[in-house]
Structures are given as structure tokens and as C-alpha cells.
């Protein structure tokens, strides 16, 4: 299979290690990964903040760049959600039937990293070894947006040496919400305080998720509080091996 990595502008710039981990794991399980270098941003921030006209060229651009590939895999559930759910809506609102058709053909081939492994390739054990106490926060877009189900947890539970502790109130939003975190900073922090409390209660060393954007928010507070708890994208746990 011809797997294109949709790294997302956010991970490309701020979390390059996540991208490296995704490439290494996909290759470890026998996939050929390509990286279409023309890719930039899917337009999610613009679209969800209300700058929908500004997002349209980015949406069309994405469709042009990724249409040639069999599978498009991304380590960001929210950007996958943007492409799978909101592109359809954007084309509808623009009354652009040609774009709508192209989006419909593309959307089913766009996968979040964990669902690609578990649902598409039927792999849960990627040969990882990670002897640490870990908890997992299911981000809203992975849980309710694109419905990856328990794919991330199944991958984590298959990691050798891991001490996996479920998170209380896991399904509740951490308060990130893109520009919400800045526009409604006080409410965002009130939501985050409760999420942080639950994370600390697990006494985990690392909090894992399928979206680095939410993790940046959670990690920002964990670091400000000098809590000693780290954040890591799921791929960065799965890439770790013995020796």
C-alpha cells in the first residue's frame, strides 16, 4: 500500500518527534511511507474559528495534494476529523459539487494513526517496550469526532512492560478547543484543572493522547505546576523498544 503521511502543520513544526515515530512504526509493520512535501495545513483552525473563506484554498489544496494516495495517515485526530467531517460540510456550504465529490472520494482513505493500525491493518502489537506508568486521555475528536473507539488503548495494552492506568472522567474535554483556549482562557483553564487533577490521581509518569494539540494544553499546565508528569503522543510510546 501507498501510505502518505499527513503530518499536519502543528506536528511538523512543534512535535517533529511524533512524525518520526509514526514513520518508524509504519515501516516496522511493513508499510511504505511517503511524505508529500507540498502539504501545509488542512485549514482546521481557520474554519473552526469562523474564517471559512480563508480556509477554502487550504481545503482545495489538501484535496489536490492527497488525492493520488491509497491511504493517508495522520497522528492528529482533530485534523483527520476536519478532513473527514468538515470538508464535506465546507463543500456543501460553498455549493461546490465538484469539490464535494472529490472530498467524498478522499475522506474514507484518511485515517488517524491508531485506527489505521488497529482497524485497517488489524495490528495491535507493534513490538513496543515501555516500562513506565502511563495513562491515556481520549481526545474529543478521536472519541466523538472520528470515533477511533478503543484502538489507542488496545495498542497501549499490548506494549510490553507498560503499567497502564485508566483515567477517571476520561471522556471529558480537557478544555483546549483550538482558539477556545485563548478566547475563553478562564473557562478553558477551569476544565483543564479538573483534567489535571484526574491525571495526577493516576500517579502516571506520562499522559498519552492521539492529539498533540490537546497534549500541548495539558502539558503546558503540568509543566507550569512542576508536576513531574510528562506528555507523549501515542506514537512516541509505541516507537520505544527494548535495548
Amino acid at each position, binding site marked *: 500500500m501507498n501510505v502518505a503521511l499527513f503530518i499536519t502543520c502543528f506536528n*511538523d513544526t512543534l*512535535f517533529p518527534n*511524533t512524525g518520526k515515530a509514526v514513520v518508524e512504526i509504519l515501516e516496522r509493520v511493513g508499510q511504505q511511507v511517503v511524505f508529500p512535501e507540498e502539504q501545509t495545513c488542512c485549514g482546521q483552525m481557520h474554519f473552526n474559528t*469562523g474564517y*471559512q473563506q480563508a480556509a477554502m484554498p487550504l481545503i482545495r489544496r489538501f484535496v489536490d495534494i492527497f488525492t493520488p494516495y491509497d491511504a493517508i495517515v495522520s497522528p492528529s485526530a482533530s485534523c483527520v476529523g476536519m478532513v473527514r467531517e468538515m470538508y464535506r460540510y465546507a463543500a456543501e456550504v460553498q455549493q461546490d459539487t465538484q469539490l464535494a465529490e472529490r472530498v467524498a472520494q478522499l475522506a474514507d482513505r484518511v485515517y488517524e494513526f491508531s485506527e489505521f493500525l488497529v482497524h485497517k491493518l488489524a495490528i495491535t502489537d507493534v513490538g513496543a517496550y515501555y516500562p513506565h506508568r502511563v495513562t491515556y486521555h481520549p481526545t474529543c475528536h478521536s472519541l466523538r469526532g472520528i470515533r477511533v473507539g478503543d484502538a489507542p488503548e488496545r495498542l497501549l495494552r499490548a506494549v510490553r512492560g507498560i503499567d497502564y492506568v485508566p483515567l477517571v472522567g476520561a471522556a471529558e*474535554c480537557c478544555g483546549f478547543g483550538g482558539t477556545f483556549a*485563548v478566547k475563553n482562557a478562564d473557562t478553558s483553564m477551569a476544565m483543564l484543572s479538573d483534567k489535571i487533577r484526574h491525571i495526577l490521581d493516576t500517579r502516571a509518569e506520562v499522559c498519552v493522547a492521539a492529539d498533540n494539540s490537546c497534549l500541548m494544553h495539558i502539558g503546558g499546565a503540568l509543566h507550569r505546576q512542576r508536576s513531574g508528569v510528562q506528555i507523549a503522543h501515542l506514537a512516541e510510546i509505541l516507537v520505544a523498544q527494548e535495548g
Partner: protein
Amino acid sequence: MKPDSVIIELSPRFEVGAKKALQNTQLRRNMGKATQTIRAKRSAVVDEKSDWQALREAGWQIKADVMAQLDTYLVQLEAAVTAAGGVVHWARDAREANHIVTELIRQTGTNEIIKVKSLTTDEIRLNEHLEEAGIQAIETDLAELIIQLANEKSSHILVPAIHKNRSEIRALFQKAMNLPDLTDEPKALAAAARQYLREKFMSVKVATSGANFAIAETGSVCVVESEGNGRMCLTMPDVLITVMGIEKILPKWQDLGVFMQLLPRSSTGERMNPYTSIWTGVTPGDGPQQFHLVLLDNGRTSVLADAVGRQTLHCIRCSACINICPVYERTGGHAYGSVYPGPIGAILTPQLVGTAHASSLPYASSLCGACYDVCPVKINIPEVLVHLRGQVVAEKQKTLAGALDVEAWGMQGLATVFANRRAYEAAQSAGRLAQWPFVNDGYIDQGPGPLAAWTAMRDLGAIPQQSFRSWWRERQKHEQ
């Protein structure tokens, strides 16, 4: 065109109201406890229904049909109510509705009415209007009574006093009802309210209500409630005046079967609510001998005209979205500055009053999607929120302030950068350089400009030295 007399009260911007509410630790405790309790109750009775998703779909279908043929169903309802001895009135907006209700009450010669809990009458601020006309409206729902006695505004559509705990309610009743020995036992508080209200039920001759549903084919109107106060108001007085939003119609009697399964479970977390009253016009010698139905538009037809926003009118006011909302749980209802708080309020209020008058509400959400999951009629609230954000931005950009707006410039600038790979890569490098004065040990703890709102409460990881794409390029070179 939006009616100019929509008078839902709007407070300052959501984030301002929210900031104030978040400082109230008692409120945080009360809200957290109440919403978590009701969520657990709801999920227990919803999860036991194996056909829940089919019911939701049926609810959506019926409502979508109502919206598509609202004009036909409204005329059908009017004919059926009239044939059954009721009188139908049409109100374009709050002002007309208030005028109609006031005149109807004046004709009876009374200066006191009892009320069934009704959001629609709250929306048009009927009580205040009646007070100006010298008519006292007495709320008979326990929580509405608490709010009325406290001279406060509702903070939840179903449990308007959700922000108050029982010791606060005891203090209120002790004073208002002159009961110095009252305890804070729920039973004692309910008994005090019961005593207070019973006198009113026995003596007042005019009642007002809202409506949960009205059946177009039969002209029947339905009110669903828990306390029995509604039943008293709907049967004891001589005159009943019902104010109903035009979207509350169901085409057929049998449609109630779907909604009576959806509403109580989503709302109070009960399999069935204690009291369901359904009446058709006037029955000689039984119940009110005069029945008036006021059909209210008040912005609804402009919501109907918007293909994406239209689904908002499917709402059956169950409050499941409010109870599940992590934003509402923290801020409470008052921050929304409207009779309709929470996720449904964040999409309904701006559409009723125009996004220009409630431009912060579509942003009062992290788009977490929990509201959409629990909505019994499948309103895609996140989608409507994003749609309304688009309207807010489009309207803002037509103004001078909008043209000079820093956020708009930043967004447009970024979009231009993202539209070109080379510009994007140059911006990555520029960002890495520009951040150095602010980076401390790999983190930014005091960011400049718009970053300050982030770093006021959170650290921000610095941009690493090498982007993913530059790593990829190096790797490709190596392999060749």
C-alpha cells in the same frame, strides 16, 4: 429580517460573564455536583434502551418534516384548536405576544395569574411586562418560585435554580415565607413551597403555560412536568393562556409516542415523567372554559430560513446538552446572558437575536461534541456553532473595526502563508528565530501578544530546532 423586539437579555460577552462566574467557588461546587448527578441518571435510562439510536433518528425525521411544512401544519393546528373551542392568536414577536396576553388577562378583570414553568414566556419576559401592567404572575414550579423569590434569573432551562444549594434555598424561604424554623431537608423545603402555592391554586382564576408539543391533526396541546403544579394550573382556573413557539408542532398524535420516549429520559433521566397533561380546546364543565393559544414567531422564521441553522428548531428543550457540557458545568447559566444557556443557547440565542448581538456565544464551546452525542433529536450543535462563527466573522469583516481587527489580519496572513509551501517553510524558520527572547529552558512562560492569554496559565513548549519535514529531507538524502 430579524424582529427588532426580541428581548432576550444579553449580558456582556460570554468570556466576561464566565470569568466572573468562575470566581464563585460555591457555584463551581453546586454546578459540578448537580450536572454530574443528572448525567449519571440520564445515561442509566438511555443506555437501557436498545433502540435509542432509532428513536433519535425518528425524532430527527419528524422534526425535519415539521420544518419543511411548518406553514401547512400551523394552519392545520389553528383549525383544529378553533374547532375544539379554543382561540388562536398569532404573535410576530415578543411585543405582540405580551400585548395579546396582557389584554386577555385584563378582560377577565383579575390582577393575579398562576404560571406553569415556561421558557417561551421567559423568552418574551412576560412576567416583567405583566408587572408593568399591574398584574402579578406567580411561578408555581418549585425552582421557578425559588428564582422568583430570590429576584434572580434562571441559569438552566429545566432546573432554573441549579446554581443554588439547599441551604441557600432554606435561607430564602425562611425570609420570603416567614418560616424561621424551616430546616434544609428537601422534604421540608418542598412542603413549605406546597403550602405557599396551594392557596394560589385554589384562588387564582387565570393561568398561563407554555407547551412541550402541539398536535396539528387534533389541536391537542401537551405539557410535560414533574411536580403536579402544571396539572393544577391547567385544570383549576377558568381561563388558560398558552404561549407556544411555532416550532413546537408535531403533525400526528402518534408522533408523541416517539417524543415521550425521548424527552423524559434525556431531560430528568426518568423513564417517564410524573405528570403529562394533554388538552384539546375546551371541554364544557371540565377544566378552563376559555382557552387561548398564542403562536409565537419571535425570530423563529429567520432561523427556519437558514439551511444549516434550521435544525436548531428541532430542540425539545430537554437540557441533555446543557447537563453534559463541560463549559456550562464550569460557568453556570448566567454567563450566557440568555434564557437559553449551554450549547443549545449558544446556537439558539444568536440566531434569535442576530449573531451581531450575541457574537461571543458561538465561541462559548470547545467543540468537544458531547452535546451532539446526547441530543435526542440529533441536532449537530458543533456544526451549527462553526456555521455561526462563520457568520460572526463575515459580519465583522463588513465593519471598519473588523477591517482593522488584529485577529482577522493574523488569520488572513496565516492562510496566505499556508497556501504556499515555501512561505510556510520560511515562516517555520522565522518563528524559530523570533521565539528566542521568550524561551526559557525549552519553554515560553510569558508569551507576547496573543500568546499571553495562553501563557498566563500554561507554559508553552518552544519550537524545536528541526521540523519534521527537514528531518525527512535529511533522511531521504541519506538513503539515496
